[in-house]
């Protein structure tokens, strides 16, 4: 079964321990200066945003059908059956199509390195595959970030919304968005205030390109046959004309003298 994270912003206390645990897990520096940064970057894969007394985490949504993995020409990004969307930097050639394609603007780039990597939260794939929760969920002191089976977390999220009328925005972000994601969000403040696109398709994004791409295998033999057929007809005409004693050559110009400019 597929694992997921449920982040309930109403339980978050902005302690930023998830940020620190994430940095440690991914061997990134976590200084006071980094802690103060309020956006995801190539050295900060998750961030707790604060607006007044409302908080919201940003991290990779680990989509069910990720745009980034679908566009990657070398399959450096991949969706695992367990949930995490992982990245293999040794395959990557740095085209950055994943960054352009991601609807949440998650993948970040090491712009100042000569062998740059894409950086994003990979939902602690090694831990999850070993049956452990992600580093951020393991350290969360209030249970705001919870790790578990996606189905069960979804039920729990629905229960929380149902049992606490008026407390939450009536939306479990990630349930249907881009076909469903492995990170589910609950909040009392509108999601778009924290940069989550609110008008977003419920179709998995890879469908948008696959609709076109899937026609290619049919197009190639068809196109080849049509072109070959046209070639045959146009050249056959010439042969027939020659055999019937007409000139095989068309007259290209009314005469060579006019119709031309020096």
């Amino acid at each position, binding site marked *: 079964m597929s694992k997921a994270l449920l982040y309930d912003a109403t339980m978050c206390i902005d302690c930023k321990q998830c940020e620190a645990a994430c940095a440690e897990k991914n061997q990134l520096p976590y200084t006071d200066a980094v802690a103060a940064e309020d956006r995801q970057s190539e050295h900060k894969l998750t961030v707790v945003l604060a607006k007044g007394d409302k908080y919201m985490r940003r991290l990779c949504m680990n989509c069910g059908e990720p745009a980034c993995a679908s566009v990657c020409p070398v399959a450096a990004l991949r969706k695992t059956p367990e949930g995490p969307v992982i990245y293999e930097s040794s395959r990557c*050639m740095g085209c950055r199509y994943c960054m*352009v394609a991601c609807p949440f603007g998650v993948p970040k780039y090491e712009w100042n390195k000569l*062998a740059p990597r894409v950086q994003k939260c990979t939902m602690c794939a090694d831990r999850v595959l070993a049956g452990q929760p992600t580093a951020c969920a393991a350290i969360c002191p209030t249970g705001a970030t919870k790790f578990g089976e996606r189905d069960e977390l979804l039920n729990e999220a629905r229960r929380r919304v149902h049992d606490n009328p008026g407390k939450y925005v009536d939306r479990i972000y990630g349930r249907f968005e881009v076909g469903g994601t492995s990170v589910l969000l609950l909040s009392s403040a509108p999601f778009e205030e924290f940069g989550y696109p609110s008008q977003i398709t419920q179709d998995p994004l890879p469908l948008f*390109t696959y609709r076109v791409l899937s026609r290619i295998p049919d197009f190639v033999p068809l196109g080849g046959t049509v072109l070959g057929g046209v*070639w045959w007809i146009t050249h056959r005409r010439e042969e027939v004309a020659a055999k019937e004693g007409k000139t*095989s050559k*068309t007259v290209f110009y009314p005469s060579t003298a006019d*119709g031309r400019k020096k």
Partner: protein
Amino acid sequence: MKPKLTFWKVVFLAILAVGMYATLVRFTQGLGASTHLSDKFPWGIWIGFDVLCGVMLAAGGFTLTAAVHILNIKRLQPIVRPTILTAFLGYLLVCVALMYDLGKPYNIWHPLIMRNPHSVMFEVAYCVMLYTAVLALEFSPIVLERFELKNALKVVRAVLIPLVICGVILSTLHQSSLGTLYLIMPEKLHPLWYTPLLPVFFFLSAIAVGLAMTIFESSMSAKHFGQQLELPIIQELGRVLLVVLAIYGILRFEDLLHRDALKLILRPGYETYLFWIETALTLILPMILLLQKKVRATAGGLYVTAVLVILGFITNRLNVSITGLESSAGLHYIPKWTELAVTALIIAVGFALFGLAVRYLPIFPAETVHAYEEPEAVGTGVLSHAGD
């Protein structure tokens, strides 16, 4: 020949020097130091101009080989070689541009063994790779003729038709796929440009630009290489261009109408202004010009029209790849000087290589008029024109 320092040579050398320095910055300090790209705006003019426009400007190659070899329109023959040369150089330079843009250019071969057939980029990579090879083969008779390698010539000529068919299919695929690339971002790309028809528009406009580039090249070659201008040919191209533009224009506006985006074209704003620049250059002005018999019949008129169409579709590609993505990214992207210097370098090298090829290789028919009146044996029609 005595080397003479003309104005254009000085310009060329200046572009070369600045471009080389920019190259040094790019490969010693990385993309961060050499571009204004960022996490919010990961693709700039190296993709938007060098790759998207580069491939589009080389579209004359497949348009003309299809017309001459498949549709058997022999009177277009004299301009096939310069067009193939342009296409071949164009694709080589696109590959060079990619080496600048890729974060890890030394991994450019990875799609060969690491495959993701669901990726449009993967498909484009394969098509561009294969089509560059096809162009090299289509171009090879010119070199083989120059060095009189008769056996090799025979081999290439024997496979010419399948080669041309492959080239047309590969071009159709990747010209349209460059539009498909942007289908994955329905929320990011501005509705004036995001449409499920993007692949169709990219393909149709590639044909239009292919025709316009052929007119442009013929005119330039006439001016600078002392070639005779094949006026009846470019008149014919002009007529076809008018029809292609009309089809493109109808589809473009029908699409806006059906997507309920037509109201956007009158809403004042940054995107709207660029939309109108694009539309004026691609559709309004060229079509008004081409509808005049006077313009359609004269070399000067056709030249001006071709330049407008080329500039118009360059604007279109930049609108799709840059303008249309700025508001969702929340910033204005302005290329850094290094980005412009590299792009200028690539264009300048393209012009220089074209000039060199024309000087040392049999690109233009030596005696066009004569070649066309020579009697030709039945059935060898294809072979005798093979490689052109």
